[in-house]
């Protein structure tokens, strides 16, 4: 589904990714772990097309398509979803309005009919309920006044509504208490653990992986994947730290 080959990327003039190669197949959940500054968030931003993140070498294909040729909204329509580490507050724009417009823009881009207001609200209510989020919150301006945990939960509600093929979740576990972590973990499994979908979980800690069992774990250090393995690798990292493994 996603094939990243020898990816190099700069932020400003600074090289961050330095030859990253990674392949995800449908039905797989991959976790990327690594120390601060290794390039984990940069990878998420490069894949979703954030301005200012410049690819200098290498290629990325997504379902056979050259991902790097696409604008951010075209990547979304192609089925890619980025769960933000720091979801952005947008005063004055209601979650519901924004999500309906976003979803219908994606559907239009794919040649599908738009959802009516009633159809959309039904989907939104299902997802909000499954993630323990009050429908009233979904009517409020995007992320404004939300706690850290509520923002992350809102990301998952959005993911449920948009129903992407590939989710890149950037530290979705940070800022969550134990209960919220379980709810979010269950949400990821419910929405994304399917034979035709894939997930790239970017995380610092093993704890999310107790709820969302990865098929593969990779260590990202200094802009490259330095080690790959099964779920046991995450436990090893938790025990020994990154220093041992990055070397």
């Amino acid at each position, binding site marked *: 589904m996603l094939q990243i080959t020898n990816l190099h990327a700069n932020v400003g003039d600074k090289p961050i990714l330095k030859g990253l190669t990674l392949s995800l197949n449908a039905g797989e959940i991959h976790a990327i772990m690594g120390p601060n500054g290794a390039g984990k968030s940069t990878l998420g931003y490069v894949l979703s097309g954030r*301005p200012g993140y410049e690819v200098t070498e290498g290629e990325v294909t997504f379902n056979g398509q050259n991902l790097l040729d696409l*604008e*951010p909204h075209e990547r*979304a329509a192609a089925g890619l979803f980025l769960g933000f580490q720091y979801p952005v507050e947008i005063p*004055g*724009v209601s979650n519901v309005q*924004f999500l309906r417009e*976003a979803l219908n823009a994606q559907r239009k*881009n794919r040649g599908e009919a738009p959802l009516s207001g009633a159809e959309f609200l039904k989907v939104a209510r299902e997802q909000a309920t499954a993630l323990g989020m009050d429908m009233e919150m979904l009517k409020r301006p995007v992320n404004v006044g939300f706690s850290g945990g509520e923002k992350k939960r809102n990301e998952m509600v959005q993911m449920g509504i948009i129903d992407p093929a590939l989710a890149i979740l950037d530290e979705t576990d940070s800022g969550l208490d134990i209960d919220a972590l379980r709810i979010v973990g269950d949400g990821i499994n419910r929405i994304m653990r399917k034979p035709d979908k894939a997930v790239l979980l970017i995380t610092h800690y093993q704890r999310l992986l107790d709820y969302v069992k990865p098929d593969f774990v990779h260590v990202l250090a200094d802009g490259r994947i330095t080690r790959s393995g099964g779920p046991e690798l995450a436990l090893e990292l938790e025990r020994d730290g990154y220093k041992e493994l990055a070397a």
Partner: protein
Amino acid sequence: MPAPTRHDEAWRYSDIAAVAAAWPLPAPENIIVPAGGHYARTIVQDSGAIHQIDIAIGKGATAAIHVLNIGGEYGRIELNVTLHEGADFKLGGVQIGGNAQTLEIITTVTHAEPKATSSQIVRSVLAGTAIGTYLGKVAVARNAQLTDSVQSVKAMLLDRSATANAKPELEIYADDVKCAHGCAIGELDPMGLFYLQARGLSPADAKKLMLQAFVAGVFEGAEHEEMLIEAALQKLGELV
């Protein structure tokens, strides 16, 4: 009276050639709201015009003016408001300009007697080499105690070549008053735009949604709220 020049403070940022062409202006429209009365007015300036309106609001009366200033090379809305005891004045103004448009809202709000309230909210969205100006003077007379006045002025620049001028001004002779004013000029938050695009909105739709949020609150409760928002959205759509 000769046509104004840039030395006249109230015309400092105006399109002087357009003003000269329209000079002499007809006498200002004169509105008197009797004691206890209510007055509401919606002005859509969409063709390039100068509106000058004098409004006297009687004891305990209210006036609400909503302005959408979007059309023509030069559009100016000038309000000269006098508030009597306990009167209330509300202005909700939106200016949206592109190309080389010059748009301005100029107000003088005089609290002549005690306990009157006034609120002015003005939002400008400017692209191209457009110039958007708000000059707002609030004058509080010596005996106008317990005046409560608010000015909130914000402008959003879509291009570096656009200009916003904002000058809220207070002239207070009473000593027991509340006069708040705030003023901000900014650009669309790039992270917000990216967030919306990452969820599937095109760059133009993402901008439009954020700008809609920026201006929409101004028309809340306006007599012709839907029409105003629709006209504003259409104009925004031309700019993004």
